[in-house]
């Protein structure tokens, strides 16, 4: 079914990520199913575990989650693949974002743009609560990690709301406590 990736595949590979970029509303993770279809099922350049590993690594490492895309590229075609995938997934969306935000900030005080910013703010804040809930869910679900996990989440919220401490100290403390097996 599949053939190994050759350099001649690179233009098509790059083009595919350029297209996916414009479909990645809500983040690059939204296009993960489509990348899976292309890289694993259609072309067979990656196996299932390679795909899952890329997503897990990007989530475990610091930085934006979009970095699972260059990891996929790296697994398919080394550093050239990583570069093609990253530039592909970011270039169109970057140009569009810059154009739209410049257009919007020039018209910042018009009723239409003010309606946009104030009309969307409640939804945005609601979605941030959901994002926090989704991150907390694994700790709520698993009895083994429930007590330590929820304790750490609650402590983090309290420190963030009551102090001006930088988040890195909490992240380091969380890592340390976790490595010792308390979470």
């Amino acid at each position, binding site marked *: 079914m599949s053939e190994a990736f050759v350099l001649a595949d690179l233009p098509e590979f790059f083009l595919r990520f350029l297209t996916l970029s414009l479909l990645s509303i809500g983040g690059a993770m939204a296009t993960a199913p489509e990348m899976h279809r292309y890289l694993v099922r259609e072309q067979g350049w990656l196996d299932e575990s390679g795909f899952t590993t890329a997503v897990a690594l990007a989530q475990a490492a610091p930085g934006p989650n979009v970095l699972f895309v260059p990891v996929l590229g790296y697994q398919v075609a080394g550093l050239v693949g990583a570069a093609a995938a990253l530039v592909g997934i970011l270039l169109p969306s970057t140009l569009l974002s810059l154009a739209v935000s410049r257009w919007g900030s020039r018209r910042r005080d018009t009723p239409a743009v003010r*309606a946009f910013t104030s*009309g969307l703010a*409640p*939804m945005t804040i609601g979605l941030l609560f959901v994002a926090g809930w989704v991150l907390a869910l694994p700790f709520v679900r698993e009895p083994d990690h429930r007590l330590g996990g929820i304790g*750490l989440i609650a402590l983090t919220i309290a420190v963030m709301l009551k102090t001006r401490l930088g*988040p890195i100290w909490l992240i380091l403390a969380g890592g340390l406590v976790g490595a010792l097996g308390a979470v």
Partner: protein
Amino acid sequence: MPTDQDPIHTSSGSAPARPQSPADLFLTFTVLALQGFGGVLAVAQRELVDRKQWLTREEFIESYSLAQLLPGPNVVNLSLMLGDRFFGLRGALSALAGMLTMPLVIVIVLAAFYNQFAGHAAIAGALRGMGAVSAGLMIAMACRLLPTLRANPMGPLWCALFAGLAIALVAVLHLPLLWVVPMLGVAGWCVARIAIAAEERNR
């Protein structure tokens, strides 16, 4: 770093501080990206709004509302917009490069050496601990942004309705964001547009 100041100060109007140079932007975004285990957004809010005060909370929500609506990773769009706002294209690229360069190097190195550390219990534990902290950071950020809705022209009832609907549709009904964001976005825009028109008539 002032610690005696009230951390929950209500910020409105324009932000009191700004980055000194594109290099300052690059460094700041590098530092905040490297703290982003399980998501950069909460760290970005903490560093840019609460600590550096380059943005008010209102400006942060505005930029993020737009960033999530556009294609592309939300925090990447956010960094582009903030960089652009201070130093134009140079600023946008500096912020973007800061957000991506070091994390990219790290994740590629991790991918190259993955098999040597996979399955180590202490590492899995550390990642779990950092995951719990990032969940807490996210929830705390949402709490801190909540008071910005006080000045919203739609009033508290509509705000509660839209925030509640977003939570119900995504967390309870598990509808894809691709539907929820445009749907609530259009509805929110219409309600806000009417509220703003009424506000201007009464002036």
